């Protein structure tokens, strides 16, 4: 009898303990952020480039006490860079892992996860999807810290047809050829570039779409060179771009090249070789003078953190994660709770411009300002991060050229010049 009572007492104490621990446990549950990106397959490098930057910001948040005591944790959703796997990964992140927000997806798999994101109202901030499919996809929960390909394409055409945006003494292009890889992320550029060249008074002599991932592109290059181009706009993954450019070099081509943001970085020079890419033009998003100083500080910080240079989409990821983390903090400070439904509103609250707002450039700065009762306007590495009604950012574009084995900015096209 005594034994029975003791046992019951122990059970009761344990039960009370568990009940008491319940709410605390819930409070300590991590804030899950889904990384909806390719981690395997041909585009695994995208996930590899994004993840460490996202983790760096999460560590900044977590070491400063988290958000309301809750740490940010990540759940990987491997899209494999294809639509089907992207849909499955989004389904799991949204409905099984119950992530609070998504970082991603890429242009490669956006079409498959679009409806899941919208129907479940999960805020997504993608640092990688420039696809024009996202231009008017959803008003409430879709955001991106990379400019639309529509703007990028227009910037390329503007620069190639207006000598003020090219290197000193360079001539504008009279007979451009457009080579585009047939993947969702690349084809998105095709129509904007072709239309924009026409808008600026120069017809594209030939458009060549090619299959990505082939070992060589000699036939495609022969077709392109058949139009006697004075410049080729090349829209493809870095690996394919290096092959196309090498094949063109081996076929005797020595005209101009214009590449997109994926190649406008030091990695691409290493991949394609400095000799091959000397003199080519590239596109990149640029920030103000203030933003350029921030970029340098970020590069140093990331080098210390990861022991490597910032890679493609690194700066976009920095902005995306800061926006997500600050929105979570703002949401928590509003009413003590963080929900998917309110998080999207707070993404706008921490990033929209305003005269009464304090401009911040990092999570730590933003946290201090929010805790001081101020409203904040996050200013990013890739621009001011002012989302339009559809979650797009408008950024000025830098026109860069490889000079002496490194990228140099030769001109900046203001966003207003692309209207």
């Amino acid at each position: 009898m005594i034994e029975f009572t003791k046992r019951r007492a122990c059970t009761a104490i344990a039960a009370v303990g568990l009940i008491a621990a319940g709410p605390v446990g819930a409070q300590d549950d991590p804030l899950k952020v889904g990384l909806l990106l390719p981690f395997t397959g041909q585009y695994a490098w995208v996930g590899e480039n994004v993840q460490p930057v996202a983790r760096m910001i999460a560590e900044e948040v977590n070491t400063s006490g988290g958000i309301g005591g809750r740490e940010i944790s990540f759940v990987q959703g491997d899209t494999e860079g294809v639509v089907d796997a992207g849909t499955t990964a989004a389904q799991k992140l949204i409905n099984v892992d119950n992530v609070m927000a998504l970082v991603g997806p890429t242009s490669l798999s956006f079409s498959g996860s679009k409806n899941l994101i919208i129907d479940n109202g999960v805020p997504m901030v993608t640092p990688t999807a420039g696809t024009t499919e996202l231009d008017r996809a959803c008003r409430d929960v879709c955001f991106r810290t990379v400019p639309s390909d529509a703007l990028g394409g227009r910037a390329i055409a503007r620069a190639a047809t207006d000598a003020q945006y090219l290197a000193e003494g360079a001539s504008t292009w009279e007979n451009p050829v457009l080579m585009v890889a047939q993947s969702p992320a690349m084809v998105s550029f095709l129509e904007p570039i072709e239309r924009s060249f026409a808008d600026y008074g120069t017809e594209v002599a030939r458009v060549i779409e090619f299959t990505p991932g082939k070992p060589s592109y000699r036939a495609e290059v022969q077709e392109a060179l058949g139009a006697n181009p004075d410049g080729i706009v090349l829209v493809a993954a870095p690996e394919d771009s290096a092959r196309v450019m090498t094949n063109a070099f081996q076929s005797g081509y020595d005209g101009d090249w214009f590449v997109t943001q994926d190649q406008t970085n030091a990695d691409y020079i290493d991949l394609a070789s400095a000799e091959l890419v000397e003199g080519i033009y590239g596109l990149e998003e640029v920030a103000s003078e203030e933003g350029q100083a921030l970029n340098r500080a970020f590069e140093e910080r990331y080098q210390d953190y990861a022991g490597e240079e910032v890679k493609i989409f690194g700066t976009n990821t920095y902005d995306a994660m800061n926006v997500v983390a600050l929105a979570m903090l703002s949401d928590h400070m509003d009413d003590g709770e963080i929900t998917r439904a309110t998080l999207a509103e707070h993404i706008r609250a921490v990033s929209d411009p305003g005269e009464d707002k304090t401009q911040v450039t990092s999570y730590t700065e933003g946290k201090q300002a929010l805790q001081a009762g101020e409203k904040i306007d996050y200013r990013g590495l890739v621009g001011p991060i002012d989302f339009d009604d559809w979650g797009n950012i408008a950024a000025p574009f830098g026109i860069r050229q490889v000079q002496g084995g490194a990228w140099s900015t030769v001109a900046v096209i203001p966003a207003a010049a692309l209207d």
Partner: protein
Amino acid sequence: MIFVQTLVYGLALGGVIAVSAVGLTLAYGVTRFINFAFGEFLTLGAFFCLLLAQAGLGLAWAGLAAAVAVGAVGVLVERAFYDPLMSRGLLPLLVTSVGVAFVVQNLIRIFAGSNPVRFPLPLMRPIEVGGLFIPREQLIILGVALVTMLAVHLLLRFTMLGKKMRAVADDPMLARVAGISSRRVLDATWFVSAMIGALGGILLAITQITVAPQMGWHFLLVVFAAVLLGGIGSPYGAMIGGLLIGLAMELGATYVAANYSYAFAFIMLILVLILRPRGLMGGSG
């Protein structure tokens, strides 16, 4: 002029395919199963070569050392994964080889990362002959491919090992009765097969400029096409099949549609198989 230019390109691509196909079909001839992890021998060859070149070895020596190293890996893979399953039928072997392929791919990804890396061949201007551009890289590829195929021919025809390999391929029981150690022949076959695969991978890396963990897996499809076209199990058939597939891909891409170059490889394969179901040299290997 474009036709001749395309033939040059097609022969070089065909050389890469032919070398790889010879490696694959050699192992098939002796073991009678298709090794789906063969593409990974190509990938390993390219990565080992890259690693050794980065360590300061000349590219030619790095290529040779990489090929030998991958040959050893081939023997290890066979002993660890395939040999224990040899008596269980073809299906377990086939599925295991797919599994081995994924394991190797991901091991490469762990050590080398997923980002493509440039193969360290210097950029070379093409040789121009009367308006025809002949890339020097392609001359290297053709040269290595011809030497490799000649070496395989000499091995099979004029060495004791080659004769033993052919004997085991024809009838393993009879070969054993004749005093040939199947074990040693199997080891030698896997070594040579993987080594040639590695050379194919190095030539592929020269062709496509960059190396990446999935490069061999992606290329395996056209290698299979060449093996089937030539007659599975026939090294000479694989050589001819590889060259024909390379030519078909480049000619089709130039004169019909560049996007469907892989399709032309298989159109040619289907046409040949309709006329000769065992391939060009099937049964005569």
